[in-house]
């Protein structure tokens, strides 16, 4: 798949953070997220939205992100940042 455009990536990260799929931005690293985290978040978002789970910001995913929706997050705060110790 072609690499997403920078503005789509930026929109995607912002959207995923806003609706609970990515943890809030780390003040130490700014908005930076690892590729693995981002892919996991996209997969979770695609699952929740009934899309094919590709883990990449494809057209269908971006279209769903532009669909009007409720402001509340889909996942509760902290759900995406739980890790094994």
């Amino acid at each position, binding site marked *: 798949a072609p690499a997403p455009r920078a503005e789509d990536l930026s929109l995607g990260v912002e959207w995923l953070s806003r*609706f609970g799929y990515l943890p809030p931005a780390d003040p130490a690293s700014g908005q930076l997220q690892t590729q693995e985290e981002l892919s996991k978040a996209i997969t979770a978002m695609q*699952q*929740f*939205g*009934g899309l094919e789970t590709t883990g990449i910001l494809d057209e269908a995913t971006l279209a*769903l992100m*532009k*669909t*009007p*929706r*409720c*402001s*509340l*997050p*889909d996942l*509760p705060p902290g*759900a995406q940042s*739980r890790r094994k110790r």
Partner: protein
Amino acid sequence: QTPPPTKWSKRNLSWRVRTFPRDSPLGRDTVRALMYYALKVWSDITPLNFHEVAGNAADIQIDFSKADHNDGYPFDGPGGTVAHAFFPGDHHTAGDTHFDDDEPWTFRSSDAHGMDLFAVAVHEFGHAIGLSHVAAPSSIMQPYYQGPVGDPLRYGLPYEDRVRVWQLYGVRESVSPTAQLDTPEPEEPPLLPEPPNNRSSTPPQKDVPHRCTAHFDAVAQIRGEAFFFKGKYFWRLTRDRHLVSLQPAQMHRFWRGLPLHLDSVDAVYERTSDHKIVFFKGDRYWVFKDNNVEEGYPRPVSDFSLPPGGIDAVFSWAHNDRTYFFKDQLYWRYDDHTRRMDPGYPAQGPLWRGVPSMLDDAMRWSDGASYFFRGQEYWKVLDGELEAAPGYPQSTARDWLVCGEPLADAEDVGPGPQGRSGAQDGLAVCSCTS
């Protein structure tokens, strides 16, 4: 890993539309009606009861806001995020529901670009009672806007939403959890939902009193609106104190279940405990849920520990959340929550200095003040005060019923508006209901 769900510990929840959309084709009453029906979707199947109220104390405050409105969930213009609601809890915003005022809110519109207010409201009220988003595509709690959901009067929740809300609150007594709620699409265009109105198709009769000269039998604030009762008729004022119609409505046509032969009522009030409306006449009283009488009424006023003979007036004082009954020079204090008369009553009136001891009726209003009516005059007592405000009494007809100064000869008053301002053409004070 999801946190335990939050839910309301009480079952009677009040709501109020605090701010309305500014540039919308939807009128205020349509917005209120859609909110009413969207809440009813949830209360129809759970033991929750929703009541529209005036004032700032509503559990669910509904606002139409733009951009950043200081709650951490800024809106973003047309599209994007369209609404949100706060989960139940102890915080002061719990249950509050906000709609983006930049969206093109519609109702039964063929315009595919519009945003169906009823569909969004059902979703948001799901949050307001404790439901979170789910992935199921058929659920109303799916986070994405999926277009209109059909007629508000016939809409039934998808099964998964019913199950989730039952897990929080249980099943309403009258509902079978296994019953199929789905109904076929109506062939005829569905009726426009409206709050109960007072329209009558029968022409006015000869016994119709005139609002500018009437000594009202009863006055009450009900759902934030004012009702003035005289004989078999009543006038209704919106929460902005606009007269809905210059002509009175027939009492028994609106308050369904009042006896046809009832020629007047003594006193009326909305109970603070469950927001039901209580009518008194002589030794009997009736309890209404919305505008339908409850089963088993009338009942004797002795249920309130009141003596036979009925009452002149009743109202709930916001200051102490107690209900006061008045009869001649006496008054009683009653606790609607425990359904008990407070000890030490009756007492000799009046409790409020400057207010006459014998009243036609009294009510509290959305400004927090209490209003006492007698004859053609009324007295205002500010919130928490024990004395009538200076400058009272004033004319009830002039200040509430859109009339001119009190007339010297009441018999000369013909039908039609009396006034002293631009409101005298009558049209200026009409309020459309949809």
